[in-house]
């Protein structure tokens, strides 16, 4: 997809261009969110916020870099902001913790049984690779990790999941 063409159109308030980008990126954006946020309702709210922010901040996108990397970095930062604010709230009301945990469990996202064997970092890399077929080099940029580390984590994760499949059979 030629994102630049659509980005320029969004700047001219072209709704069709917005929809084109939305439908092309929604799965990978949601993957990024679910790798950080465990609450399905919050994940949905954040997804909405991501696309609103994308439009509002579209003039800040620098075409020297890949659009998808910019959008995923925006998504990651929004998720981290939410986690940070949630942590602050929780510290203020520790008494609510146990109630909160039970409530969370019911809402927790359960994407795929094989992904369960992965830790957060592994899940994030695997989803970005599988859902949008992003290059490891780009994943490394978005997650701010060395390329070798991303490749190593990805391969370890695939091996873990395959072991799970084998054990299950």
């Amino acid at each position: 997809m030629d994102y630049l063409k659509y980005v320029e159109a969004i700047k001219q308030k072209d709704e069709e261009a917005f929809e084109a980008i939305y439908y092309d990126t929604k799965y990978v954006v949601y993957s990024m969110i679910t790798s950080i946020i465990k609450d399905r309702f919050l994940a949905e709210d954040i997804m909405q916020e991501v696309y609103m922010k994308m439009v509002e901040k579209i003039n800040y996108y620098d075409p020297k870099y890949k659009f998808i990397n910019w959008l995923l970095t925006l998504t990651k930062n929004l998720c981290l902001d939410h986690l940070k604010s949630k942590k602050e709230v929780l510290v203020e009301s520790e008494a609510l913790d146990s109630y909160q945990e039970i409530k969370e469990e019911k809402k927790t996202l359960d994407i795929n049984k094989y992904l369960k064997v992965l830790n957060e970092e592994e899940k994030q890399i695997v989803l970005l690779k599988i859902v949008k077929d992003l290059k490891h080099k780009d994943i490394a940029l978005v997650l701010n990790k060395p390329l070798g580390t991303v490749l190593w984590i990805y391969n370890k994760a695939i091996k873990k999941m395959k072991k799970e499949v084998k054990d299950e059979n």
Partner: protein
Amino acid sequence: MKTKDLKNKIKEDIYLLTPDVISKIDFNNLRIEEKEEEKQVVSRLNKFMLALSSTLALGIALVFIVINFSNSPSIQTRNLSFEAKEEIYSLSTFSSVMLLYQQKQLETSLMSDEVESELLINNQLDILNQYLNFLEPLVTDKNNLLFEIKTSSNINFKKEIKFTSILLNGVAVDYVLYYNEEVNADETILIGIMEFLNEEYSFNGVLKKVNEQEEFSLKAYQISNQENYIEVEYKVENTKQKFNYSIYENDEEIFESEIRIELDEDGVFIELEYETDEKEINFLIYKENQNNTIYVEYEIENEESEEGYIIISVVYDNTLLRNVYNYQIHFGDSEIEYEKDRVIDDEEDEDEEEDEEEDD
């Protein structure tokens, strides 16, 4: 379950779970923020300094341009963009010649099995290495790939292309091909030669338009042995430049492979794909600029499947007294190292360095 199926299952689940939030977004009421320009109030003094430095910079630039123009020969130079037929001619010829040369060298090369390993990739390294030898100059930063198109210095041919690249060890290498071109209404015919490691290789090619798309095919061989040759077919497919190679021995096709090249903001990404022993083999090859290494991600699929990556660097082998490729294979937690032949000729530049040292 194969890795491919596992990935598809995860993808399907994400597709099913992803909510649609577009209906909740009122696009027309969203306000696009103006990018805050650097609101620096430039004082009069600053304006004066700016004007002065601009004048100086302009002067320096003019001197630089004059010097450069007076030194530059009248040739057309360009970086890799796949927008000129000469790039396709060069890459097709160069890659075919390298493959043909290595086919001849297979018996004497550093074959695998030096290290015992059950990894499936182990049996693919000799094939990968043949390709790596011509891909090394291509996976460099695309600004390091330079094509010079000029009038031939060989009296038998009218045209000459010099293709220059920077290798992993920072050495620049040149490959030169000479050819005659016959342009007809529906096709362009090419006949020429390329020298590689003191041997001459002949080639003939045809460029034509098929459904408004340019397609090119080329055959490379040696006059002394015309039954062993390489055929390559080129076309563009979904923004990727696709090269299909067929290796012939005694006029019979023995091996087929496909290479897809994609130019990216970050550099050149190359996919190599072939089938052998009922296995589908896929490689993604690119350069990691920070460490001057090549990364190769691989996938091997058959009843079993294997996915891993390889880090390749150029090292000096003290026994062989020449540069070789060092392969570090990573699969899960395992890591294995191999050394493989590197046939790229960067000796000339070493001689030049020696000459320079002598001059000093």
